[in-house]
Each structure stands twice: as structure tokens, then as C-alpha cells.
């Protein structure tokens, strides 16, 4: 869907991005992760040509975007900014309607689409006449997302979209983000410096440093097979939690003992280990019952049994 080849961007002598290449599959969510100044935002902005590359090629759907008219290209790509970038002199409705108006949709179509999106994003229609300054941070970010999604672009670029939000609002929006059907049919590239966010939202993560890609892979690939010290160092602080989150029950299925179901809640095997552990903690359960989707086999486990299975899985990963 999106293909980047040998992309470079030099600002004078500073090499912000230095020959990076990657591909993003359709409907995939790729996270560009790294410290500030690593070149992740520059890379993102070259994809909608807010920044023109020094050299290299970018293809979307097989078409070289550098040969397209930038304005037309951008109208087909959703863009969400950290500080939302809402127009302070436009109402919420006007802000959301910017792209359709550029595309010359008729009024009724725009209105219908706005109502539809507001519902999905849990925003009240009463906000339509309000100005961005009158909204909370979370509401502003949702309006920013609605503005990016309204014309239903195939590609969505997000530059630290949740960076300006407090922790509580952020995890709430993360949950909504994952549940939003609109986003499931989009190819998304998101920039963040927040490791937890990257692991929570990303199908694949691309760790960048000094303008280059250090490692690219699924969350568990990065965790269990870090390419070098930089990657393991980068993930170190949150390592255990990330590991528990990135491993699902069916990954450790073979190490769970087969025993008759005990009293306790049932969960599907797609649940990650971290979520399973939370049930013990918050619900004071002794056992949880896990159901395999395909075989409909049920295994139950105590906290200690779960942990032991997880460590055996880890040991095996390290040997591969």
C-alpha cells in the first residue's frame, strides 16, 4: 500500500533522514517510534509532502506521490497533529467540513457524514456550533480525528496524536481508537515517542535513531529479539509490562495444564497475559478459564500457573 524507498532528507548539513526504506501493508498500523530528533516526524511529513524529500521515492498504491499535485495528494490523506491544529476561527462543524468542501461535496452529504462521524467518536452534536477554544483537550483531539477521517481517506498519518493529552484521557482514547471501525479499514502511519502507546496501538513498530531505522517488526519481535543494545535499552524501562501485554493466551497455550474448569471468569485465548493478570488483581479471583477460539478447548489457570507458562514461553523465544 505504502512503499518508501531510500528516502533522504537533509536540512543543510543536518541529515534528518538518511536512506530509509519500508513498506506498510493495507489496513496495517505502523508506528514510527523514537526519541525526538530521530527523524520520525520528518519521515511522516514527507509522505504527504509537507516536507519535500532530498532524494528517494514514495509510492502509495503503486503511484509515485512526488509526481502528483501536492494539494490533490493531501486531500486523499488524513492528517492528525499533536496540537490538533484546529482552526480557531471555524466552528467544530466548519473545521470538520474543510476537506469535503475542498473536494466540493454537496452540503447534505457533508452534513450526513459529520453526524455519522460524531456518533462514532462519541461527540455530542451540540458541539457543532462551538469553537475549538470552548472544547476540552480530549474533545479537540476527537474533532481533529473527525476532520482527518471525514473524506474517508485510505491512508491516515498521525503525528503524536495523543501527545498533548493527560494519561486518563489518553488511555480512554486509546481504547476508543482500537474499537473504531473506521480505522480498521485504514492504512495508518503514526509517530510517537511513547513506548507503551506504540505497543498498544501498533501492528508493527519501526524504531528509528539518527535518521535511520534500527529495527522494524511486530511488538513481540522487538521485545524478544531486539536487534541491538539500542532497541533493548529503549524498551528496558517498560519491558516486563510490554512483554506481558504482547503475549496472548494462545501463545502460552501449550504450557498451560489441562484441568477441569474451576470457578472463575472465562476469557478468550486472544486476551493478553497482562489483561489476564489484572483479573486476578482487581477481581480477587483464584482461577481464570481460557477458551480457545478454534478448538473450543477450555483451560483454567491460577496466577502462579499463568506466570510459569509465560516464563517457559519466554525461555523458548530466547532459544530460537
Amino acid at each position, binding site marked *: 500500500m505504502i512503499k518508501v524507498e531510500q528516502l533522504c532528507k537533509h536540512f543543510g548539513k543536518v541529515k534528518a533522514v538518511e536512506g530509509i526504506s519500508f513498506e506498510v501493508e493495507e489496513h496495517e498500523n505502523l508506528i514510527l517510534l523514537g526519541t525526538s530528533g530521530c527523524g520520525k516526524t520528518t519521515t511522516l511529513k514527507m509522505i504527504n509532502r509537507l516536507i519535500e524529500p532530498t532524494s528517494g521515492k514514495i509510492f502509495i498504491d503503486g503511484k509515485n506521490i512526488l509526481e502528483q499535485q501536492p*494539494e490533490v495528494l493531501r486531500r486523499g490523506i488524513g492528517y492528525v497533529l499533536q496540537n490538533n*491544529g484546529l*482552526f480557531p476561527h471555524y466552528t467544530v462543524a466548519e473545521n470538520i467540513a474543510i476537506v469535503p468542501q*475542498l473536494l466540493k461535496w454537496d452540503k447534505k452529504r457533508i452534513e450526513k457524514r459529520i453526524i455519522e462521524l460524531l456518533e462514532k467518536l462519541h461527540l455530542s452534536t451540540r458541539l457543532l456550533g462551538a469553537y475549538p477554544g470552548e472544547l476540552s483537550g480530549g474533545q479537540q483531539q476527537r474533532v481533529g480525528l473527525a476532520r482527518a477521517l471525514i473524506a474517508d481517506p485510505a491512508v491516515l498519518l498521525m503525528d503524536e496524536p495523543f501527545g498533548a493529552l493527560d494519561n486518563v484521557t489518553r488511555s480512554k482514547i486509546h481504547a476508543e481508537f482500537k474499537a473504531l471501525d473506521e480505522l480498521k479499514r485504514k492504512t495508518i502511519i503514526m509517530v510517537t515517542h511513547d513506548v507503551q502507546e506504540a505497543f498498544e496501538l501498533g501492528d508493527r513498530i519501526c524504531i528509528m535513531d539518527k535518521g535511520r531505522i534500527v529495527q522494524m517488526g511486530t511488538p513481540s519481535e522487538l521485545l524478544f529479539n531486539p536487534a541491538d543494545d539500542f532497541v533493548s535499552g529503549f524498551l528496558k524501562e517498560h519491558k516486563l509490562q510490554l512483554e506481558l501485554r504482547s503475549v496472548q493466551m494462545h501463545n502460552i497455550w501449550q504450557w498451560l495444564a489441562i484441568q477441569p474448569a474451576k470457578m472463575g471468569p472465562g476469557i478468550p485465548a486472544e486476551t493478553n497475559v497482562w489483561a489476564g493478570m489484572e483479573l486476578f488483581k482487581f477481581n480477587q479471583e483464584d482461577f481464570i478459564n481460557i477458551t480457545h477460539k478454534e478448538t473450543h478447548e477450555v483451560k483454567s489457570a491460577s496466577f502462579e500457573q499463568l506466570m510459569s507458562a509465560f516464563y517457559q514461553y519466554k525461555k523458548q523465544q530466547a532459544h530460537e
Partner: protein
Amino acid sequence: MNEQQSLWDFMRQQSGKLAEQTVQHIGLTFISLFIAVLIGLPLGVFISRRKQFSGPVLGVAGILQTIPSIALLGFMIPVLGIGAKPAIAALLLYALLPIIRNTFTGITGVDAAVKEAAVAMGMSKWQVLKKVELPLAMPVIFAGVRTATVITVGVATLASYIAAGGLGEFIFGGISLNNTNMILAGAIPAALLAILFDFLLSRLQLLNLKKLKTATKMLPLLLILLSSFYWLPSAYGSKLKAGFTPEFMGRRDGNLGLQSKYGLRIRTVVISDAVMYKAAYEKQLDVISGYSTDGRLRAYNLVVLKDDKGIFPPYYAAPIIRESSLKKFALLENVLNLLAGKINDSTMTALNYQTDYLHQSPEKVAKDFLVSQKLLRPAQNGNEGVVRIGSKIFGEQYILANIYSMLIKGYSNYDVATKTGLGGTKICFDALTNDQIDLYPEYTGTGLLAILQPSVKVIDSVSASSKATYNYVKDGFEKKYNIKWLKPIGFNNAYALMMRREQAKKLNIKTISNLKRYLDNR
């Protein structure tokens, strides 16, 4: 005229003129402002795009702002002549800086995230400017336009110096004529206009936040509407065009007398005497109200029309001095009278020619003259007190002040302090009565008409003879102000109508009556 006349009476009496000047003033202000917005706004946008030009552009606009207004108006005359064009050009140059600077500041101050969002949304450069940058910068741009408006209303008073009309006609006429009501009749409406426009624009700006789009479109419309107020004064549409000073316009022995005694009807503009002669020479004007001893008369080859009905009273020059100063400086009267009768009309014209046209310093001209008259004595560097000499703000007075200064230093033990360039009659005379100067050269006609202001009957009876005029002002000043008129210097610097020599010859006009006949035979 009646001294007790109140400001309100004056304004009512002159309401037609006041309305005309106000309308001209509004028109001048808004035409200039409109053009300044047309130029300044795009220029401000341009330098916000190409920042390397912002320094030079803002620098030049800033330099323009520092040029004194009168000087700027003066620069315009050789290029654009006199009248509305140079005035508008000068005013718009003053209005440019705040408009350019605020547009630049406003646009560069728009939140970068908002601009980036607009571009990322797929807006073209023009759309970003129109839909995002200009609306968000509008409050700052509006503040610039407000500043420019207030500046322009103020500077537009000076437009009357170059025949562009406006409330300056009353203000500068009033200063020349020692008529406070006239000054206020111009100054108060001008100040009110500035306050009113600033207020209205501030209202428009508030409205702006909510109904931004309509307000943005209304602004140019409003400017065009207000600009259309201005038209060139063309009351009589005659063949010849006259330029009179604001002082001449308001005087009985000036334009009023020309109208009542000669029945002269001529298309007239108000203009400063600083540019009047040149404008006549360059055929911008045909008839001007000059002074009969002015050096430029000779420089520009102009000829005086004979005052065959005698409406211009005699203007014999003589030093006037405080009685208290005469007591303080016992020798002073005799020293000052050394000059009595020494300078006739043609001598004075020649002296003025040397300063006004040959650009010699008044000091050098004064010295050369004293040498030629064998009156010069080396300065005694005395220390028995300081005599303060004042002068009005034109060449002849500078020369006279210098001559008196040299005489006093050479013939007495007094030192001298000169306070030259004291504006018009009112400023000079007030300085004298308030004991800020001891003496200055004054003219009998001015003393009669501008200071004593007796009844019309008295004026008519005394102004027929130069001697009667002198005696009348001498007595009047002594009684009323304790100020003494010394012996006349000799020349008569009276008002006179002038034309270019070759035109006067061609049309066979020698007297003011000739001029009237020519104008009537159309």
C-alpha cells in the same frame, strides 16, 4: 471683526466652509488609507512569505515615517505638482508602515500548527492565505489600520499647505490671523474625526470576530465610500486658478476684500506660501497672493498687479519693543533706529532674493548689507544684559533679526539672544506680551488687522494712508499692551496679487481691475 465672537458663532457662521473642509478631510484621509491598504496589505503578505525582504521593506517604510510631514509634502511638489495628488501620495506613505508591519506581524504570528493543518488538508497557498492566515491575522491588521487612520487624520491637516484643502485651512489660517476660534474650528473637528474613526474601526473589529467574512468584505467597500467624499474644489470654474495662503483667505484685506471691493471671482485653492511662488512659476497656479518684497518675486519672474482700488493696507515694517525693555536697555532705542529709513522695497526684495533664492545665510546677507551701508561695527562682547530678539518664520524676518543683532552688539554693551522662527504673528506676538522676547519686527498692517482688530469703519479710515496706519497702531499698542513701535525701516511689505510676467503681458493685465475684467469676459 468682533473680538467677543464665540467659537460656536464662528463655526455657525462658517458652517458651509467647515462642512466642505471636513468632507475634504475625510475624503483625503480615506483615499490615502484605501490606497495604503491596497499597497500595504499585499506587501505585508509578500514579506511574510519571503522573509529576506522584510528587513529592507520595513526599514524603508520606517524611514518614510521619520521624514517630517511638511518636508515630505515639499518633496512631492516637483513630482506631482500641488493639490490632492501630492497630498494623497504623502499621506499614504505615512499610513504604509503600520499597515505593512501589522500585516507581517499578524501573519507570521498565526499558530504554525494551524497553518500546517491547513496545508496538510490540501489547501492551496491562496486558500491558506484567504481562509486561515488573513482571518486569523485580521485583529492585528485592523490595529495597524486604526493606527494608520489616526496618523492620517492628523497629518492630513498639513495638506492645506499644498492646496489640497481639509481642516488644516482653518488651523493654519487661524494661526496666521491670530484667530483662536478659527484654529479651534479646525482643530476640534480634526481631533473628533480621529477619535470617531478609531472608535468605529474598533467596533468593526469586534464585529469581526463573529461575522468575519462579511466584515472583511465591508472594509474595502467602506473605504471606497468614504474616499468618494473628496473632490477638488472647483467653485467658479474660471480660466485662471489662484492660490492664496490660509491667512490671505480669511482677511478683509485679502480674499474677502478682493470679493467685496473688486467683485473678483476666481477659482481658488489654499496653499502654503512656502510652495506658492514655485507653483506659480511652474504654471500650477496663475494668480497668487504674495508679499511685495518677497525675493522669489524676482527669482521666479513674477509681476505685482497694481492695487488700483487700494484694498491692501500699508505694511510698513518697524521693530516693536516692550516698554519695560526700553527702560532696561537705555541705549536700545537709538541703536534700533539706526536702521530707520534705510531699506526700501527694492532693497528688501534684493536681500530676500539672496536668502530665498541664492540660499545665502541670513547672517551673511545682513552683514553684507551693513557693510554696504557702512554701519557695521565689530562686536563689543558686552555683558550688560541680554536683548532677546524674535522673528517670524520667514526669510525677511531672519535677515532683520540678524541686522538688529549685529547693530546691538556693535553699538552697545548688550549681548543678544535671537529666537527666530516663531511661527506666525500670533506666536511671535504672544512671546512678546509674555516677556519671552524683547522685540521683533512687525508690520503696520498686521498690527492693525491681526492684533488690534478695530471696527471695519476704523480700518477703512486709517488704512488709506500709511502714516495714519502707523500712528493708529503706535497709539493702540502703547495703550493696550505697553509695547512701542519704533521708526519704520522704510519698506512696505504689503500683500499683492502676482502673476507670471509673460502671462500678465500676454493677457494685458496690469491691475487687479484688469484681472477682474479678463475673468468676467469669458
